[in-house]
């Protein structure tokens, strides 16, 4: 490693109508290091990377980009790729219906004359996979691979273009602990081969583990650059710089803890997915009491989301048998509509995919699941709608200029609050939260936790599905660990430790 910067971004300012997304940001990456970029959502990380990669072309921002000793004026992604900058986004850019090798060389095909040389392509693709230590059949279609493997294929694709600076935007957000560890090891390995990495991440533990240098952004400004090798980086320090205040308690304290009668009871619940052609839930039994937070822990793909969906009216059309009762009476939910009217609400894991209607505004999203509340004889009262939406805007602290704002314009944390608001408006007894804090920043996380705490204090029951062990341990009253479609164990909060949960989760 040497000390010459491979990349310098100087006094970058980028404005959107009405907002200064980046304000005089300077960012310097040394050759051969792993440089982490952290900050709350909306701090400007993604915007900065879009400026760097040419998504916002030269002229749409002010300031200088110096890469490899030369001032660069990128007019598009093609230009930045040419000099050796590759970005891997959270939403992967692979074509599901194409094979692994087709994907790796998509856009820079190996040609003989003007015809693709498939033999050479397959050979070179194999070499690339070896570099990322991935062992899959090259002819497999990408849609058949898990998200962890896809991530590695993206990296292989970047390496095949002779990348000098690799930028990863939240690469581990959707990965389980094993896959994450794997990816971090790969980044270390690439470092020894001279690839410089910029890593954007919300997972501070991961940042501390891997970073040589950390730059913190807040409100579109560079707050500081810390050298991890000199021991300047710790979780508290990072959080302090990110939020501009110290958060001592990540999890809010509960005033009262009054656990009441059984609200939901699920017995011998089995589900078979006709699309996958296999059984996905086997003999699941569990219950939730009034006023308690039940944590559903487990690895990705263990069946937690499927369990929630199958209970919540089964929109995916699994074949189900088993029994549900709510507050003592037996129920059969044929559609989410039935579950909702029985007092169940489900905040989905994938806000953008199946949670919110991004092209509609805040108020429409908040009221959509319970329009009858603001309608008289099926005619919607627009004014009542605005009033309701404003109430949730205040009580959930949704940061938006007004409730007529289109939801896709909000930051991740605020979108999540809209999602929570939508489900609170159906006035549920049981709230299912699927990965409620995924991809949102520390400040917003704390707010979501506070809301959860208030709700159970008011007597609501919550099922929280989460892959973050600290969150499970910090928030739950009781924990079920799901593994391979079964309940692998139940833990009282006082007995639960990270190790015990992981042991059950990986115990197939």
């Amino acid at each position: 490693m040497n000390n010459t910067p491979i990349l310098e971004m100087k006094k970058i300012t980028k404005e959107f109508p009405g907002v200064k997304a980046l304000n005089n940001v300077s960012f310097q990456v040394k050759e051969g290091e792993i440089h982490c970029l952290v900050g709350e959502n909306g701090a400007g990380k993604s915007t900065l990377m879009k400026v760097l990669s040419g998504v916002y072309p030269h002229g749409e921002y002010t300031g200088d980009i110096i890469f490899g000793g030369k001032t660069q004026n990128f007019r598009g992604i093609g230009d930045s790729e040419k000099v050796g900058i590759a970005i891997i986004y959270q939403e992967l850019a692979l074509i599901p219906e194409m094979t692994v090798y087709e994907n790796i060389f998509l856009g820079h095909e190996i040609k003989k004359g003007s015809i693709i040389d498939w033999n050479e392509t397959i050979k070179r693709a194999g070499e690339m996979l070896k570099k990322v230590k991935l062992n899959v059949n090259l002819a497999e279609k990408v849609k058949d691979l898990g998200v962890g493997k896809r991530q590695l294929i993206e990296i292989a694709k970047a390496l095949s273009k002779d990348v000098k600076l690799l930028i990863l935007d939240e690469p581990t957000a959707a990965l389980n602990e094993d896959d994450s560890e794997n990816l971090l090891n790969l980044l270390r390995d690439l470092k020894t081969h001279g690839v410089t990495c910029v890593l954007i991440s919300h997972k501070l533990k991961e940042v501390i583990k891997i970073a040589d240098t950390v730059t913190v952004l807040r409100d579109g400004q560079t707050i500081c650059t810390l050298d991890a090798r000199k021991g300047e980086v710790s979780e508290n320090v990072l959080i302090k710089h990110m939020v501009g205040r110290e958060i001592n308690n990540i999890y809010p304290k509960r005033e009262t803890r009054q656990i009441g009668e059984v609200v939901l009871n699920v017995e011998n619940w089995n589900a078979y997915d006709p699309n996958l052609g296999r059984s996905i839930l086997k003999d699941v039994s569990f219950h939730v009491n009034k006023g308690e937070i039940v944590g559903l822990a487990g690895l990705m793909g263990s069946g937690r989301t499927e369990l929630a969906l199958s209970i919540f009216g089964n929109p995916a059309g699994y074949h189900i048998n088993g029994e549900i009762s709510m507050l003592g009476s037996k129920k059969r939910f044929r559609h989410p509509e039935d579950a909702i009217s029985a007092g169940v609400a489900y905040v989905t894991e994938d806000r953008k995919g199946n949670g919110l209607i991004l092209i509609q505004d805040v108020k429409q999203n908040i009221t959509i699941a319970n329009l009858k509340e603001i309608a008289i004889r099926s005619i919607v009262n627009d004014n009542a709608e605005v009033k309701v939406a404003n109430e949730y805007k205040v009580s959930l602290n949704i940061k938006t200029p007004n409730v007529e704002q289109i939801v896709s314009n909000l930051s991740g944390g605020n979108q999540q609050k809209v999602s929570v608001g939508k489900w609170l408006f159906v006035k549920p007894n049981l709230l299912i939260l699927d990965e409620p804090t995924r991809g949102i920043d520390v400040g917003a996380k704390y707010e979501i936790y506070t809301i959860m705490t208030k709700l159970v204090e008011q007597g609501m029951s919550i099922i929280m599905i989460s892959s973050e062990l600290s969150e499970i341990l910090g928030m739950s009253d009781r924990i079920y660990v799901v593994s391979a479609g079964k309940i692998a164990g139940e833990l009282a909060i006082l007995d639960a430790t990270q190790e015990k949960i992981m042991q059950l989760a990986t115990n197939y």
Partner: protein
Amino acid sequence: MSFLQNARKLLEQNIREYGMYIALFVIMTIFTITTKGTFISSRNIVNLVNQTGYIAVLAVGMTLVIVIRHIDLSVGFLGGFLGAVAAIAMVQWHLPVYLAIPLTLILGILAGLIIAFLVAQMKIPAFVATLAGWLIYRGAILVVTEKTGTIVIPDKTFNALGNGFIPDIPDIGILPGVHKLTLIIGVIAIILLILSEINSRKKKQAYNFEVLPIEMFVIKLVFTSALIGGITWLLAGYQGLSWTAVIVLMVVLIYNFVATQTVLGRHIYAVGGNPEAAELSGINVKKITYIVFGSMGMLTGLAGMLFASRLQSATTTAGQLWELDAIAATFIGGVSPAGGIGKVTGSIIGALVMLSLTSGMNLMGIGISYQYMARGAVLAAAVIFDVATRNRAH
């Protein structure tokens, strides 16, 4: 804030919506000048509405179909076929008109439900399912008119749908030559509009919501009132409101109300915005699909009858290209091909743009080949404008 700033802000916020009205105004002005006033004459405007009311009706139904991310190519020949069915019901089965009309509408609903079954239950893309319908109904028209060729409809009531005018109140000596009932309806419409706008403003103020600055509010009211007044005066100067115009107005008012004010309308737009999220919000997406295609089928039946009534006969060629005219009207009217966005009123403006082009160019004696090209160019320009303003808003 000064008056001009207010006006600018209002225009900028609503540039997409107002853009269409401005475009329609420009097109109409150009034709009025090039035809030395013939285009804007009462007679021409009335004819324009009567000749093309069926496309407007189809465009209204198509709006909702496209909003829920589907398309219906079968409406053209289905409309032609249902027009023929109505004719046969009256001429060959001797059904009275007041049975033939509902029968046709019900058959239309059934045809729509069949499409919905294929789309919602069998998961066949609407493009394919309705393309099959397009072929089937094309054949069906030929089958039912095979023996007789064109079926002439003698029923006067039925033919009034496409050719007749609402009756006038008895002449009392004032305003001779002017259709007084039309005038009265126009005045009532203006009064109702003003009252409802004032009422809605008061309600908003009661909730402490932001309202338009008072001078903007007044200007808006004066402008829309003048528009309705002008159109009323034009129509009253000829033979008054035609039945076709009444039917189109009713369809637009009802559909606009359902789309913007009711729970059903909200559910339709939610399904279009994100079907998975809608399903998980407790909205039955299949049910919405059935309702939207069913309504499209019913409006198709209505369109078929308007056309047959206009010609006073059912012909073998009825239905050709109706679906594409209707789809073009919705896109010109700002409906998003990606679903979830679009207004019924926009589609009507889109239909008016298309129809004004045809009528204006006909009056100018421009050949049909150039007419097609001009309409294509306007369609492309409208969508480009729409996309450009949409991107700017983000």
